[in-house]
């Protein structure tokens, strides 16, 4: 039977939920107007006053906030209350530019832990569970975010933090962890380590809640198999709270957005025009309750689609699909939108390593796309025909996924540069 942490809100009547959003939005806009001069100036520049906002229908009148705004207002410019009211901060890794520092009041932390508690219960958790949290604890939101939700559910919480795999496995076996929370790549690694250590029969995991990085359905199946669990996706970003902005239910098909705390919009990343639900576009969030770091119409750059069809789990919150890429990563090749993440999922599916490079060029006024991928000992053969077959199959799968032809170039191992931060995946040589 489906369990909920807060059924009255998670399964609320959509009209009721909309009323809550309308009221909260009006209050939040006034709060920001009065407390965040940076955003007030943006509203004034656009000629919008708080009186103009009567509810969600007026949301489109408000200016957007972007990563550039966060950079400009760093560190205190977007803080929504006095320093005395702030009890905690979290921060992003800052690999793509200046780091983001987000501020939380005690009420902000409470609403955040409600969100992560909902995610844990949706993954089948209750107070009988042992939750092993192997997300990093510290400035990163993952560890603390799930930790506080796990307390609220009443689970025995293991604040493991990331790393030290041997210790992770020891606690998992000795204390009988039932729910694992970490990044999907670490979950996959733990799965391998469990197999190597021959501990598969000694672990009692039933579910995992994995987020903070992109992962594919193929990866979900691999993790579920290697750990013997159901793997749930969770979405969030430091700018809003951290993990728990949206969470997956037993359907494992899209993540329910906590709409009592966040309004999601989908926009065209180029024209900034609001698109109807069900259309692919950039995800934009407005936080309705957060006072320490209130975001109005924050552009996430995540490309995805929202669905409001009735979910079999009984929750009425809108569902967001797994983001299919980032609008700042999106390439337009021969007029077709191509995301590196699509190419990555094909490579993994075909048994290639996820270390790849995409070269885009323009030859005779026509775009060309080349995917360079490293040869592996498993794919190598002394027979040229066999390698050609593998190549052909990869080209076919890429064509199916992208809709355009991509040349595949097999390169020697380790010849694609590894970087410490974010890998350089795309080289665009077009001079446009």
């Amino acid at each position, binding site marked *: 039977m489906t369990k909920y942490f807060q059924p009255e809100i998670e399964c609320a009547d959509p009209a009721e939920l909309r009323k809550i959003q309308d009221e909260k939005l009006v209050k939040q806009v006034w709060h920001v107007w009065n407390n965040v001069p940076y955003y007030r100036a943006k509203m004034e520049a656009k000629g919008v006053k708080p009186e103009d906002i009567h509810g969600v229908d007026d949301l489109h009148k408000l200016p957007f906030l972007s990563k550039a705004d966060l950079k400009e207002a760093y560190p205190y410019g977007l803080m929504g209350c006095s320093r005395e009211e702030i009890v905690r901060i979290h921060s992003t890794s800052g690999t793509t530019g200046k780091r983001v520092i987000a501020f939380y009041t005690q009420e902000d932390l409470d609403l955040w832990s409600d969100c992560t508690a909902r995610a844990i219960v949706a993954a089948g958790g209750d107070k009988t569970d042992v939750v092993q949290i192997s997300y990093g604890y510290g400035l990163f939101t993952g560890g603390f975010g799930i930790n506080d939700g796990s307390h609220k559910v009443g689970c025995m919480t293991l604040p493991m933090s990331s790393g030290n795999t041997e210790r992770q496995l020891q606690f998992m076996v000795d204390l009988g962890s039932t729910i694992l929370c970490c990044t999907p790549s670490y979950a996959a690694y733990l799965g391998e380590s469990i197999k190597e250590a021959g501990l598969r029969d000694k672990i009692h995991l039933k579910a995992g809640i994995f987020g903070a990085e992109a992962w594919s359905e193929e990866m979900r199946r691999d993790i579920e198999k290697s750990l013997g669990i159901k793997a749930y996706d969770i979405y969030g970003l430091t700018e809003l709270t951290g993990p728990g902005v949206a969470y997956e239910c037993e359907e494992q098909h899209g993540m329910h957005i906590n709409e009592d705390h966040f309004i999601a919009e989908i926009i065209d990343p180029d024209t900034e025009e609001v698109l109807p639900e069900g259309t692919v576009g950039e995800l934009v969030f407005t936080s309705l309750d957060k006072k320490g770091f209130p975001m109005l119409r924050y552009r996430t750059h995540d490309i995805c689609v929202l669905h409001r069809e009735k979910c079999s789990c009984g929750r009425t919150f809108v569902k967001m699909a797994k983001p299919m890429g980032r609008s700042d990563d999106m390439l337009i090749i021969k007029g077709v939108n191509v995301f590196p993440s699509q190419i990555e999922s094909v490579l993994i599916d075909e048994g290639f390593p996820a270390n790849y490079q995409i070269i885009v060029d323009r030859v005779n006024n026509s775009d060309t796309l080349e995917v360079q991928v490293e*040869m*592996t*000992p498993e794919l*190598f*053969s*002394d*027979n*040229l025909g066999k*390698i*050609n077959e593998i190549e052909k199959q990869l080209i076919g799968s890429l064509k199916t996924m992208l809709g355009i032809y991509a040349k595949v*170039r*097999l*390169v*020697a*191992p*380790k*010849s694609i540069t590894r970087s410490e931060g974010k890998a350089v995946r795309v080289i665009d040589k077009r001079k446009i």
Partner: protein
Amino acid sequence: MDIHQVSVFLENQAGKLSEVTNLLADNDIDLRAINIAESSDYGIMRVITSDSEKALKILREHGFIVNSTAVLGVSVPDRPGGLAHLLRILAQEKFDVEYMYSIFGQPNGLAYMILRVDDIDEVRNVLEQDGIHTADCTELGINS
């Protein structure tokens, strides 16, 4: 013992081939035969060396993708029609040869073909019955 060919994945890039031959030279590994199959971006270098185990180890350590395949060495009478005779037998018996290449200049004055076939033992038996001599490692100066 079967003769083992070492195959190496090579990107079509200046200096790649010489990197391999230098590594083998530096480690006192003698080349007995060499063959390269290539496509537009990469090639497969296939070599018979004096010590295939050592060659595999050294190349792997230097980051090359390699594998080892058992192949058949067959001596071919050094006269017109020598190879034709061999291939006729293989065709009659319907053996598929994936690829082959030659070794000349052996100390014993014989020419050899290296054949890549699916069932080495079966092909060897058939050829021996027809009076065609198949080589062992020692004959080709291979230690392992």
